[in-house]
Structure formats: C-alpha cells, structure tokens
C-alpha cells in the first residue's frame, strides 16, 4: 500500500512540488487507482512478450543529410528568461 512518504519520494523523482494537502489526497487517490491496476496481477503472463510497437515496422531511418533547423531567435522566442542568446536559468542549489 502506498504511503505519504512514497508519494513525497515519487514527487521528488517527478520534480513536482506538492503541498501537504495534495500529498494527503494523492496518497489516498493513488492507493485506490493502484489497487484497481493490481488486477493485472491475476493473469498468467508466462511466455508472453511485451508490446514494443503496435505496427510491424522497425528501425525507421532517414538519410543522414544536414538540413536547416529552427533559427536561434525562434527557438528562444518563448523562453521565460534569455541572456547572451542562451536560455537563462537560476543557479544550481
């Protein structure tokens, strides 16, 4: 059964800040959802391969030719902060 500490740990992995009330609600909701999902455990899946892709295609490649990419100004256009033609971010903690 999933507990509040598990939820805090997973939120950390997901880089997702949750407030205390969200953690409590999430713990109860995830518990219910996962217990429904645990139904999969009833099946004998011995020897059944996992699905990697639904269509019979593999190793789709393209010619290794250089082509134009997004201009720098366009790529930076939606950035919350920019300096020296780069994305600007806060310092590492």
């Amino acid at each position, binding site marked *: 059964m999933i507990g509040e500490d598990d939820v805090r740990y997973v939120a950390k992995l997901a*880089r997702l800040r949750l407030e205390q009330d969200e953690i409590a609600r999430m713990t109860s909701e995830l518990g219910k959802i996962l217990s429904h999902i645990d139904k999969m455990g009833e099946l004998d899946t011995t020897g059944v*391969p996992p699905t990697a892709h639904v269509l019979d295609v593999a190793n789709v490649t393209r010619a290794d030719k250089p082509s134009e990419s997004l201009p720098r100004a366009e790529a930076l256009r*939606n950035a919350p902060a920019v300096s020296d033609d780069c994305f600007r971010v806060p310092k590492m903690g």
Partner: protein
Amino acid sequence: MSGLDPLRLTAKVAKRLLVDGEVSAAELAKTYLDQIAAVEPRVKAYIRVTYDNAAKYSTKVDREMQALRGPLAGLPIAIKDNMVTEGVTTTCASRILRDYMPVYTATAVRQVWDDHVVMLGKTNLDEFAMGSSTENSSFQTTANPWDLATVPGGSSGGSAAAVAAGEALWALGSDTGGSIRQPAALCGIVGMKPTYGAVSRYGLIAFASSLDQIGPLTRSVYDCALLLQHIVGRDPRDATSVALPEPVKLPDAERLDGLRVGIPAEYLAAGIEPGVRARFDETVARVEELGGICVEISLPHTEYALPAYYIIAPAEASANLARFDGVRYGYRCEDPVDLLDMYERTRGEGFGPEVKRRIMIGTYALSAGYYDAYYGRAQVVRTLVRRDFERAFAGVDLIALPTTPTVAFRAGSRTADPLSMYVCDICTIPANLAGLPAISIPCGLSDGLPVGFQLIGPAFSENRILQTAHALEGAIGFDTAPAFRDSRLEVRQ
C-alpha cells in the same frame, strides 16, 4: 442572408454550394462566426476564436477561388488546442502553456491549411488531453449542446461541442484512449481514430506517444472520410507515421451484404446502461437488415485493458511532460531560489490536479523496484489485448461495441472520484492499445441524449469502417441538431 443551417450543414453540401457559387467562403465563415456569437457564451467550446483569421482567409479564398480551388477550400474548421499552430497561441488548456506561441505548425493542421480550409479557432480540452469530460481544462468548462447541464465528454470535448452546436463545420481532435470517439458519441456526431501511424503526430503536443492519434470530428461519415483523406500520410518528421496501403475513399455504401460483424460478449455483460444497450441492440439489428451477419465473439482480456492503459498512458505522459520545466517555454514560477526549486514549483504551480495525478502514477510505475510489476506487466497485457483482436478478426470483418457505457453525465458528478471518470473509456481504450482504427457514429437518443455506436476494424481497414458506418448512418437517419436544453432549469416532477 445565406439561409444556411449550421446545425445540419455538412461539408459535402457546403463544398457543393461553394463550387456552384451559391455561397461564398466569407458567407460560410460568417455563418459559423454568427453561431459562435449566439451560442458560445453557453457552450464555451473554444479557448480562442480566430475571428480575424477566419474573416481574412475566407475573403482570400473568395478572391482567389479559381486559383485556390482545392477540394477543401473555404470549408471552416476548428482545431483542438493541443495541435501547435504558428502564430496562434496553443495552450493544451494548461496554465503551464497559457501564453505559448508556437513557432511551427502541426503536420495535420498544415495539411488542411494547405488545402485552404479556414480555421475558426482552437477548441477546449481536458488539460494535456487527460480526461473524459473536458472539466480538467484550466480555463473553462464546455457544455454539451444537447443538455447544457451535462459534459460534452473528453478530452476533445471542445471540438465535439463546437461541431454539434454548429460553431464549426467540422473539427480535428486527438484520441489517446477515446478522446475523439467518446465526446463524438456524447455530442451526437461522428468521430474517428485512424490506425496508429496513419496521421502524423508532428506538432501534436505529446500525451502518450504510443497511443495518440489525430482524427476528424464531423457531422457525417462522408465528411469524416473527406477530412481523413487530407490528413493521412507518411511524414518524415514523425518516424512512427506510415503510408496507408490504399487511399481513403469517399463512402457510398447503402448495403452491408455478407459483412461479418463481431459483438464481444464481455462488454455487454456489465456496465452498459439500459438506454445505451437498447440503441446498440437496435443498431445491430439494422446491420442485419442491411445484409450483414452479426456473431457473438470473445475478447477475453477486456477487463485488463483499462488497468494496462492506466499504467502505459501515465508512464509515457510522465516522460513526455518532463519537458515542461520553465526553461524553454511556458510558465516559470516567481523568484526561484535555485534550479531545482524552479523545476518543482514551476510544475507544481503550472499543472492541474489530473495532470499531476498521471505524472505521479507514471513516475511510480517506472521507478526502480516497480517497473516490472507495473510497466513491464502492462506491456505484456497489451500484447494479450492485441492477440484477442487478431483472433477475433480471423472470423469477422469488424467489431461493434457501444462507444460509451452511459450517455452524457451531469457536470461535476464524477470529478471527485478519478476512477469513476477513468471507466468512461472502458469501451474505447482497447482500440488504442492495439493501434486499431475505430469510428463512433450517433445511433439514437436515450433520455434525450445521444448514444454512440462504435466500429473497430483491423489495422488499415479505414475504408471498410467508413463504408459500413455510411450505410448504417443512412439507415439510422439521426438528426444532428441538438436541443440546447438545460435540465438544471427544468422543474422536477
């Protein structure tokens, strides 16, 4: 005064009127903009109506009609707001993308733009297409035009409601677990999810990449085929896209002689409400009247499809949504103390509750120690679901199911319990897991609300599905004009 009825006009008829010069593209666009002005305050289908674009572009089509005479020129369309459109904000109905201005255009949208379709606007959805009622939008709740107290379904609820309410001639949506077919069913219109890979996903903001497909929402099966013709094809920018083995044909079938249709016993065993079941059974009887043969079949892993989906889709979503971190685009939190604080608060403040829930389920399912039990097992179950279909299609041409277990439900009635919302997709999810094409067509009313009839076919059987749906549509004769009632205002006896 054009005298057009936007609640009944099809693209097939509109195209003929345009070509014959009986109506101009500007008049056609104005018909929809007028209807938007009249009903949008109650329906709220659009996040953004692109009035200037619609007026300007329809005028251009009229002026250059001879040169632009493409098959779709001047036919107005609504686009779900999770497909990027250069120069028009694309929000995914999320706070984290509230002001996002795309610098390129999704391939499917580009294709219809190149055919000179006139864009009316961007439609509402559940945030990042995660939901079955459009109530998870960060901006507004869309109403079902048949009863404004009920939901339009989701996640393409804005596109479905816009078409049903006559606010668009047709629309594009996306379907990950039923997000085109379920709202089409609840709003009394046609919606189709093509075979996985048939339509490029380039520019569709990714939710679950192995399940997502773009498709049409229309007022008729013919229109569905017409729009599908123009969005399919291999795209070098989407390595999972494929060329269809045969072109999409415009349907003309009136009979179904010799067609074998499988009815899976598992779905009818439980959970389908009586009104939906009654319309479904009547439609199955119509298949036989038209010369088809209906046989009971078994899809034994049906009950495991929903649990598998609710691991696979969140797992892929948790990876896809990692890109929203406040660095390159979208919302960034105020005054972060350091980089980690920025990531965590940007995402904590930018995403709504359902998106957070899916990221958490997905991250948990992919985390060390749980991967095999959840993600690994879900992909194995996916194989079993696919094998069920393969076995069934050895004996039948198509499979018929209700699209949804119930008709449209009251807004707010399922938001407190996530699982009660997830089960809305129980009849639509298997086609996504198996990558199969499927359509929903309206097959009648239950308590004044539309019921959807779903047909699923083998991979690349779009033409067979469209022909069958077309013949059935003719036999059913459903009137697509909604009532715009509001059951909240009706006196209870």
